[in-house]
């Protein structure tokens, strides 16, 4: 979908098709953002669903002045912030946090589509997943947000708009985050 394009108005019968295309095009980026910012696969799945459902309900209000991808990622980033607020609140009122629930991805979700060499590939994928998430978790919050949005292909100016930061600040955060990630994940680069 191009920068300013938004799904065409469609008859009720074609709604599902339009929504399917919208989700297929952006679900990987929305899920990646949610996963990297929460470090929790179950929460990332919930946030991805909530993001698309909220966006779908408010789509008529979207004028297409910014990229649809940027809009979706901003909604997802806001939902991640709500998730952390909710977790803090739960912790504050003594309901505890269930950090371990859904923290890692289910092994079957990591299995490659190609059946050949599945167990080895799944183990390698799980190991890489843990190392990448650990490296991201070590970053301060702002650097983490910038790095994750950058990883979804957003320009520095778009990240600034999404997070309410000056472009120069985004650049500085990205520079620092990148330096740290390159140290942590050097063997994969």
């Amino acid at each position, binding site marked *: 979908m191009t920068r300013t394009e938004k799904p065409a108005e469609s008859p009720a019968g074609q*709604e*599902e098709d339009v*929504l*399917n295309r919208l*989700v*297929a095009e952006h*679900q*990987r980026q929305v*899920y*990646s953002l949610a*996963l*990297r910012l929460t470090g929790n696969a179950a929460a*990332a*799945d919930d946030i*991805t*669903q*909530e993001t*698309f*459902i*909220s*966006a*779908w*309900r*408010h789509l008529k*209000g*979207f*004028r297409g*002045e*910014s990229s649809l991808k940027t*809009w979706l990622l*901003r*909604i997802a*980033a*806001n939902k991640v912030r*709500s998730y952390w607020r909710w977790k803090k609140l739960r912790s504050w009122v003594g309901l505890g946090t269930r950090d371990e629930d859904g923290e890692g*991805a289910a092994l*079957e*979700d*990591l*299995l*490659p*589509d190609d059946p050949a060499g599945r167990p080895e590939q799944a183990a390698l*994928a799980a190991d*890489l*997943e843990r190392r*990448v998430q650990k490296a*991201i978790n070590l970053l301060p919050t702002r650097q983490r947000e910038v*790095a*994750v949005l*950058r*990883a979804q*292909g957003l320009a520095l100016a778009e990240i600034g*708009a*999404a997070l309410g930061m000056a472009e120069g600040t985004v650049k500085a955060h990205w520079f620092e985050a*990148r330096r740290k*990630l*390159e140290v942590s*994940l050097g063997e*994969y*680069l």
Partner: protein
Amino acid sequence: MKDEEKEERLVSLLAARRSEAFWAAQRARITAGALQKSGPARAWLLAPAAAAAALLIVLLAKPRLPVPAPETVVSTAFLEHLDLLDDMDVLEAVSEEEL
């Protein structure tokens, strides 16, 4: 390795890797959820009746209503505004020019 290539490799590492089956199942769940008659839409149909019932209850209960404890008031207000938080996630993501 060139700087751009290194950045590209780093960025690709940060992406979530999942099987096609995972993406397809997630897509199906999202589509089903989004195309369901939404809660707010159903709530809107019931809103006039709910408002009248609430008003009646308030009017009938007012003389005998004990003053609620402050923490109850805060909890109730918080619960009543939970739905608004969901909309806030979207509204915060819309720039002023878009609104």
